[in-house]
């Protein structure tokens, strides 16, 4: 009796493992095979489930691959966050075949809460990574051998947003207020901004740790909230104002823009493994092609706004809906364009400003060495794009007007 029961337990386990593994291939065949595995399992009885069973799931994955021509080089790109218009250029380059055109097959890897792109890149988890400049430079100072090869965003998208009746019109008005910030290095522009008008972030304002949304501002828990112009600022504008019953309007808010204050830090850039760039001519060549195709994606998104929004929305359901993504692309475009030195080429002045803020706030102990960024790869990519007839400067770029819907839908 006992024996029989134990066998039953083993059989159940094996059956479960097999059924699970067959779910693993993401196809819809998991309902059909729930009967057979039990028999198999009890018969085979040992050395069970995992290796044999998961091999089943591997098969379809492998057969998916050969659809791409063989000579395509497979590389991967680690994003700093989940798919959204912030990374529109890369999705466009992938979906429109720009990467394929230069012989690359790029896998775009989502970021998440605990993913640090610089670490993933340095540990070989990805061939390239998108990271804000300070978030790349800090781990670099700690010893990661990575380098910024293309500075895609020429401006910072970080704002400090408050309700207009709070009367916070410039940085000095923050004195004595409850000031929200996300921490994790997002607070540096704010701190440097406060310093620039003689305020001490630790004593002259009350700092409040803020979630990555705008609930605290709307709740009245904080007077001024940190917001990305392309994300959280849009969120408040997608929220119903309880007083009017309509969406909040830009006139309801006062905005401090760190680009104007002069403490902005550079954000999204393409980073590469510096060691491989030095040793491996093939990798450098791939880097040039990757940057070129990526920038071509960004040019497409500048010139084909709606088509690009559709690509992002279709890439994998982003966190915000279609109108949110449209808003984001519009704002992100304004962070990229115009690019006076050519898209992706580092602006030395803005770089120096970023370093100034980082060192004065103590996240970098000293100025990074010259290897922290290089412009040769972006310049080569830009030259190729110019030769192919693309406008790499976007000097006549104008921000559009995007109508947000409730909830960003």
């Amino acid at each position, binding site marked *: 009796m006992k024996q029989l029961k134990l066998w*039953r337990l083993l059989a159940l386990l094996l059956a479960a493992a097999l059924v699970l593994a067959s779910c693993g291939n993401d196809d819809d065949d998991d309902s059909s095979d729930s009967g057979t595995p039990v028999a198999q399992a009890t018969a085979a009885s040992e050395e069970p489930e995992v290796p044999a069973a998961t091999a089943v799931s591997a098969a379809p994955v*492998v057969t998916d691959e050969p659809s791409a021509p063989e000579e395509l080089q497979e590389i991967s790109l680690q994003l700093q966050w989940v798919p959204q218009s912030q990374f529109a250029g890369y999705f466009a380059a992938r979906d429109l075949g720009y990467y394929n055109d230069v012989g690359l097959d790029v896998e775009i890897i989502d970021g998440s809460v605990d993913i640090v792109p610089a670490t993933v890149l340095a540990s070989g988890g990805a061939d390239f990574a998108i990271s804000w400049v300070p978030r790349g430079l800090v781990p670099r100072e700690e010893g990661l051998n990575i380098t910024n090869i293309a500075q895609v965003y020429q401006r910072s998208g970080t704002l400090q947003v408050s309700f207009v009746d709070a009367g916070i019109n410039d940085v000095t008005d923050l004195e004595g207020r409850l000031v929200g910030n996300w921490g994790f290095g997002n607070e540096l522009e704010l701190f440097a901004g406060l310093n620039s008008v003689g305020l001490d972030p630790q004593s002259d304002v009350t700092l409040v740790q803020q979630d990555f949304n705008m609930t605290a501002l709307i709740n009245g828990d904080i007077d001024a909230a940190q917001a990305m112009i392309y994300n959280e600022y849009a969120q408040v504008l997608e929220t119903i104002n309880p007083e009017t019953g309509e969406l909040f309007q830009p006139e309801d808010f006062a905005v401090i823009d760190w680009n104007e204050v002069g403490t902005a830090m550079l954000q999204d850039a393409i980073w590469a493994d510096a060691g491989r760039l030095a040793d491996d001519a093939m990798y450098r060549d791939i880097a040039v092609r990757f940057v070129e195709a990526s920038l071509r994606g960004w040019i497409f998104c500048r010139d084909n706004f709606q088509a690009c929004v559709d690509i992002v929305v279709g890439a994998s359901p982003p966190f915000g809906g279609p109108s949110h993504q449209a808003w984001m692309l519009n704002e992100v475009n304004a962070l990229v364009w115009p690019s006076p030195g050519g898209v992706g080429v580092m602006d030395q002045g803005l770089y120096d400003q970023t370093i100034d803020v980082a060192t004065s706030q103590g996240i970098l102990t000293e100025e990074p060495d010259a290897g922290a960024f290089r412009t040769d790869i972006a310049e080569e990519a830009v030259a190729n794009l110019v030769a192919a007839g693309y406008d790499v400067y976007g000097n006549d770029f104008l921000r559009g007007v995007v109508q947000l819907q409730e909830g960003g839908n």
Partner: protein
Amino acid sequence: MPSEDPLVRDQRSTQQATSEARRDALARMVRKTVTFVVFLALLAGLYTGYKAFGQAIDDAQQDWAVVGSVLPRTDNLNMPPLSEIFGQFGETPGGQDQIYIKILFDEALFTLREAAVGFVVGLIIGMAIALVLAQWRRLEQGLLPYVIASQTIPLIAIAPIIVIWGRKNFDVFPWEWQNWMSVAIIATYLTFFPVAVNGLRGLQAARPENKELMASYAANWGQTLWRLRLPASLPYLFAAFKIAATSSIVGAIVGEISAGVEGGLGRRILREAFNYTTGPDRLFASVLGAAVLGIFVFLVVIGVERLVVGRQGKGAVV
């Protein structure tokens, strides 16, 4: 009728006993269901009552806001009405073509796969550890502290490490490594521990007289294990499985959130937390979904326990 055949009487009384037992079981189930529903209703009433009362006070205070909020955070942003939370299940979020409960169901399946693979692998590893430690008592003293120490490392610290490893270093396996498998490893990390610890205790739980009996039969190690020690450990093991099953879900959800997997309840919760300002009810709804999934796997373990061990008590002692 004193002349009734004792055999027939016996049979009848057995039948009676079974039908009574069946009736008892039914009654027990009804009672349990009623208790459960009443408890849920109570919770809902508490939530709604707190909200209504708090808002009533806030409304009354509009003109003389001296006391401040007596019951804080009762507006719709902080406490969406239950009707909205549950109504959300039937609604179709913008940009999607399915109702929300179907979306949640699909995400739950994704998470369940990670959790279940993690559970099974964790069970195998946990049992292996238990067997080894039970066999060599010295090892138990030496290794058990490390097994325990493994659980003091916060999950969010190891999650990104496992994901990065997975992408680069697990290509020794004959199948292509996918992100969800890394999440399954994270679930494994939470699962193996209760199985190892309880399994160890269970394997040592066989009564001495039974061990002596096995010894007198000259049963070898395998026979003793199979016929005595494993059956004796089943109650301990199932206690562990219940913990392990729910923590495998927790592990999968935390893993999804920190590791950036492209689906699952964890990703869904992260997304709804991010969009909280414009849709607080969806975050509540998705968290409810996670709770339901946890309860579901717990019930599955209980079901399997019934099947294998029988009702509690029976089979606990050999």
